[in-house]
């Protein structure tokens, strides 16, 4: 499934979608950035509740397909702007992390 196909569906909504054609290949969940950096695989959708600007570097360098902010976590405007500059896809959902993962598991 492509990232853009999640947006507007199954309870996910895009905050930024500069690279919507990116294919989602698996899911990784975590909030400790170095842990995520070391364990997430290229192409994974990364579900987190962290929202500081450093998530963008982690997503970019670990090459995840998108960040999914769970539980209605919001981003500051400068983080959104930087995400667009760095071509990072970010989606949001009101689901908790477990429900988001279960939902993703059934659709990707």
């Amino acid at each position, binding site marked *: 499934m492509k990232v853009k196909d999640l947006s507007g569906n199954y309870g996910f909504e895009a905050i930024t979608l500069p690279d919507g054609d990116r294919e989602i290949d698996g899911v990784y969940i975590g909030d400790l*950035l*170095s842990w995520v*950096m070391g364990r997430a695989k290229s192409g994974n959708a990364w579900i987190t509740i962290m929202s*500081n600007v450093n998530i963008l*570097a982690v997503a970019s*360098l670990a090459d995840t397909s998108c960040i999914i902010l769970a539980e209605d976590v919001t981003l500051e405007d400068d983080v959104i702007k930087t995400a667009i500059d760095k071509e990072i896809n970010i989606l949001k959902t009101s689901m908790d992390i477990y429900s988001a993962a279960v939902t993703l598991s059934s659709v990707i």
Partner: protein
Amino acid sequence: MSDVLNFHFEVDGNDFKSAGHASFLMKKNLRQLGLPPETIRRVSIAMYEGEINMVIHARGGTADVNVYEDCIEIILKDTGPGIKNIEQAMQEGFSTATDNIRSLGFGAGMGLPNMKRYTDYMNIESEVGVGTTITMKVNLI
């Protein structure tokens, strides 16, 4: 081993928000060179972890990346406090980061282990009160 390309970066130790900028630029450079995505990913992750460490612990430093025909070499230098016990610092989960740093999602004690995991060679030279130099290599062949 002939020197092909060198990239030099100053890592700003005062701006935690821009931490990772050098790694991001380096990733772009490696993409332009047409290197394999997994190689780029390994170099990017190892360099980013080093960059974050320099910002968290050492008030910044320098990063030099040398692209050779057979490997990519990353040299990270700082004049920070140094590492007291390298063996201990290499253990997953060991961290001296502050609560403030942890609240940002760092300080999990994964930095140095990640750098080792994603490179083919890693050497740490460190002297307490003087600084730390870390050399890493990722093979291209």
